[in-house]
């Protein structure tokens, strides 16, 4: 039974001009009108899609034009050079590329499992009356403006890390062979780990809210059938919900990864902007967007500015590669299942 007040499809169809009750002439006019509005809507959505395409390609094209002087001067060496010297105007993108990948990796490493777990908690375990408040609370983490993450990171979080977590990590992993390299150097507070942690907090709500939304879109019959077979909550989540929603979940992860790769203000405050590639994750480093934000406004020389824009272009290429990889993974999963 439909609850009262809820309109059915048939109601809608009838209401939108009561097709069946009019004389034939009227009826064809109504149908023509419907056909027209149908075509118009189709055209409108298509136009919007094309507009998005043009707008976003415009961004990319303007980047290519802006970065051309630097790219033609440094050539492919730009990608592998660690140098970043504004005085002699000798630039290379290796350190920012490295930093972008490392910080985003740290962020996703934490945010994806935690986010999925929270989404599972919210859809399967949480008492009904708490679902909405907790969901909104997690979403609010995305509502905190990035500049506030930055200021908070600089004045509150980094000093805390410098005093507690970093010395702890150094003392624990200092003597473990491979891991010691990851935690080498004095605790500065700011650095790649700090940036990665802040990014993880920022990305968490993206992964969580999208996953929660797609989890709750799973048709109840599927879940009920699994429960009926005696599955535990975890098994339902793992073998029914997750496979059914994986495309949406990956969408959420992509949204989060996109934010992690390109996040500017929060990272800018805590990364240290050191153009060095170091194995240690507590060392200061830099990311592409942090370099642009830190240096663009004060950069005077043409090649300097152009190199910064070229970094922006490289970020697009990185995103491109990451996305292609994700698509490939998705395709493989589908093939395996299909």
């Amino acid at each position, binding site marked *: 039974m439909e609850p009262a007040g809820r309109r059915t*499809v048939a109601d809608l169809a009838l209401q*939108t001009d009561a*097709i069946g009750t009019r004389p034939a002439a009227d009826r064809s006019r109504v149908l023509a009108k*419907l056909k027209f509005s149908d075509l*118009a*809507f189709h055209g*409108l*959505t*298509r136009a*919007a*899609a094309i*507009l*998005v*395409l043009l*707008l*976003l390609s415009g961004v*990319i094209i*303007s980047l290519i034009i802006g970065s051309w002087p630097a790219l033609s001067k440094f050539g492919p060496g730009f990608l592998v050079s660690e140098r970043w010297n504004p005085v002699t105007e000798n630039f290379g993108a290796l350190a920012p590329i490295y930093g972008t990948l490392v910080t985003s990796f740290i962020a996703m490493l934490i945010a994806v*499992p*935690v986010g999925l*777990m929270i989404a*599972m*908690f*919210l*859809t399967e*375990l949480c008492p009904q009356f708490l679902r909405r408040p907790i969901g909104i609370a*997690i*979403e*609010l*983490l*995305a*509502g905190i*403006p990035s*500049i*506030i993450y930055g*200021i908070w990171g600089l004045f*509150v979080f980094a000093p805390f890390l410098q005093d507690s977590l970093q010395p702890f990590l150094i003392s624990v992993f200092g003597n473990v062979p491979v891991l010691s390299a990851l935690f080498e150097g004095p605790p500065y507070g700011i650095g790649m780990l700090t940036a990665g942690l802040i990014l993880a907090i920022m990305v968490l*709500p993206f992964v*969580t809210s*999208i996953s929660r*939304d*797609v989890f709750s*879109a799973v048709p109840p019959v599927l879940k009920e059938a699994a429960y009926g077979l005696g599955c535990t*909550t975890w098994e339902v989540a793992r073998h029914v919900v997750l496979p059914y*929603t994986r495309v949406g979940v990956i*969408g*959420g992860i*992509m*949204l989060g990864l*996109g934010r992690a790769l390109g*996040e*500017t203000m929060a990272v800018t405050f805590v990364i240290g902007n050191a153009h060095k590639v170091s194995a240690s994750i507590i060392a200061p480093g830099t990311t592409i967007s942090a370099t642009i*934000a830190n240096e*663009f406004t004060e950069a005077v020389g043409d090649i300097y500015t152009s190199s910064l*824009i070229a970094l*922006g272009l490289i*970020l*697009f290429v990185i*995103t491109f590669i990451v*996305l292609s990889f994700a698509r490939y993974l998705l395709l493989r999963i589908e093939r395996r299942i299909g």
Partner: protein
Amino acid sequence: MNPLFAGRRRKNLVAMGLSLTATTFGLGWLVLILGSLLWEGFSGLSLAVFTEMTPPPGSAGGLLNAIMGSLLMTGLAVLIGTPIGILAGTYMAEYGRRSRLTSIVRFINDILLSAPSIVIGLFIYEVVVYPMGHFSGWAGAIALAVIVIPVVVRTTEDMLTLVPDSLREAAASIGLPRSLMITRIAYRAAQAGMVTGVLLAIARISGETAPLLFTALNNQFWSSNLNGPMSSLPVVIFQFALSPYKDWQALAWTGALIITFAVLALSITARALATPRKSS
């Protein structure tokens, strides 16, 4: 008890425990950040913050021009960006699910999701500010709209794709035109997720500093003229937080508190309005 079942049960308990821990972890950060915001910003909260202009250092004042500018530009950005994003997402999920256009748009859109916002600002600077010859609130709103679009496109497409095809077939079988099927049925089914997308987009632009710096600039004084430089809360926070003067820093924290709680209020209201009566 059957040992196999005991093992499954244990696994389930561990997983549930972990999910509870994860939730506590996520909420912990929120409490921590909101706590420090309240700690630093609450004492500065007064009526003057909402009724007076941004002051020079050493004078009393508020954030009225910045709050108004932010509301105006964010509102316009959402008004411009959301319809475009939803329509484009609709095309991709409903009409051109397998078309070449869809896959290209989807790809470029995903790339743009990670565009550093300063890059968007530079683009709008080139195509709007430079030809116009001056900074303007319009340029700021357009820059923010360009950030809104990819987020809305992505979530709209994802949520519409999740709407079961049986609903569409049912609608088609009774002769419902496709446009009505989409607007009356698919949208309704995907409503909660689409609203989430718009909220995420608003949350994202509400704190953007970099794209506004080169488009709307900022304004020390009151201005409702969208053709001139316009003030915004994030830029003011940015400038004040990093200044040497205590009164400016205090105002920056207060501004941070206001933005954050405004976004909170918005989230709750939108959720309350948009969540379908059926509880999930």
